[in-house]
């Protein structure tokens, strides 16, 4: 199976039937565990949960489809958000890759402790000028390739910052950065 890094926006788009990227993202999502081994950061769970809990807080329950509303009636809003997040994440062939351990950096003689992946994200953020969450995803993909020897072929994202720097990112990760539409076209999905 080909190994690919999946950005959070692909996972969300795969569940938004009216989204412009739904078709290609859904095809990718459905092929996970079949033709592709997908990797992403556990940060995606936080991002998905963040989107869903924001939407639910603005969303009147009465508008939910009747069947679903009945089944969800005993759950609180945060439990419903958790359920939807887990449902999206629960896919064979979708791996939430965690870089274990803690790191220590020194700032003017003062020790600052943080998860290892965060220290890597900090380094990449400084080098490539990436924003915090982008740097976190980039660091996860970087460690998969360079520390854990997982030969990722693609980083699939519809994020304009990733797509804008696709050449630089692709070169440093030794892979192709593509949007979901481009990936579907290249792979003839």
């Amino acid at each position, binding site marked *: 199976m080909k190994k690919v890094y999946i*950005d*959070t*926006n*692909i996972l*969300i*788009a795969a*569940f*938004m*039937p*009216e*989204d*412009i*990227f*739904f078709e290609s*993202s859904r095809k990718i999502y459905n092929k996970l565990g079949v033709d592709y081994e997908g990797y992403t950061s556990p940060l995606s769970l936080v*991002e998905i949960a*963040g*989107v*869903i809990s*924001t*939407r*639910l807080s603005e*969303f009147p329950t009465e*508008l*939910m*489809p009747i*069947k*679903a509303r009945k*089944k*969800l009636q*005993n*759950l609180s809003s*945060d*439990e419903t958000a*958790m*359920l*939807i997040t*887990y*449902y999206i994440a*629960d896919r064979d062939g979708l791996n939430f890759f965690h870089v274990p351990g803690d790191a220590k950096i020194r700032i003017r003689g003062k020790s600052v402790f943080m998860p290892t992946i965060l220290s890597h994200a900090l380094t990449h953020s400084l080098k490539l000028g990436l*924003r*915090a*969450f*982008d740097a976190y995803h980039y660091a996860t993909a970087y460690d998969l390739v360079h520390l854990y020897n997982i030969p990722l072929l693609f980083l699939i994202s*519809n*994020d*304009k910052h990733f797509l804008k720097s696709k050449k630089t990112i692709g070169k440093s990760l030794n892979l192709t950065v593509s949007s979901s539409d481009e990936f579907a076209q290249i792979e003839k999905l």
Partner: protein
Amino acid sequence: MTEVVPIRIPKDVLEKIELLVRLGKYANKSEALRTIIIEHLEERKELLAYEGLLSQDKEISEVAESLDEKEFLELCKVIFSGRKTSVELIEEQREEIG
């Protein structure tokens, strides 16, 4: 108020506890174990902090399993409906914190 709890611990751990008592770090084995447990719970506050939400996991899983894919997609279609695209929804998360 305290309660007596019989526990089984590996021999090598017990030997370390006995050594600490002999070194005078604790008055006896009971005090050593009590202090170590209290300190561990203090250091690992996260063990209890998220218990509330995580303990509901089973109930949530049962509801999730009762929803078929079609029902779930219909639910998502309604919840995600609006003017924002998938990219914008995630972008919003990254803009706020990033």
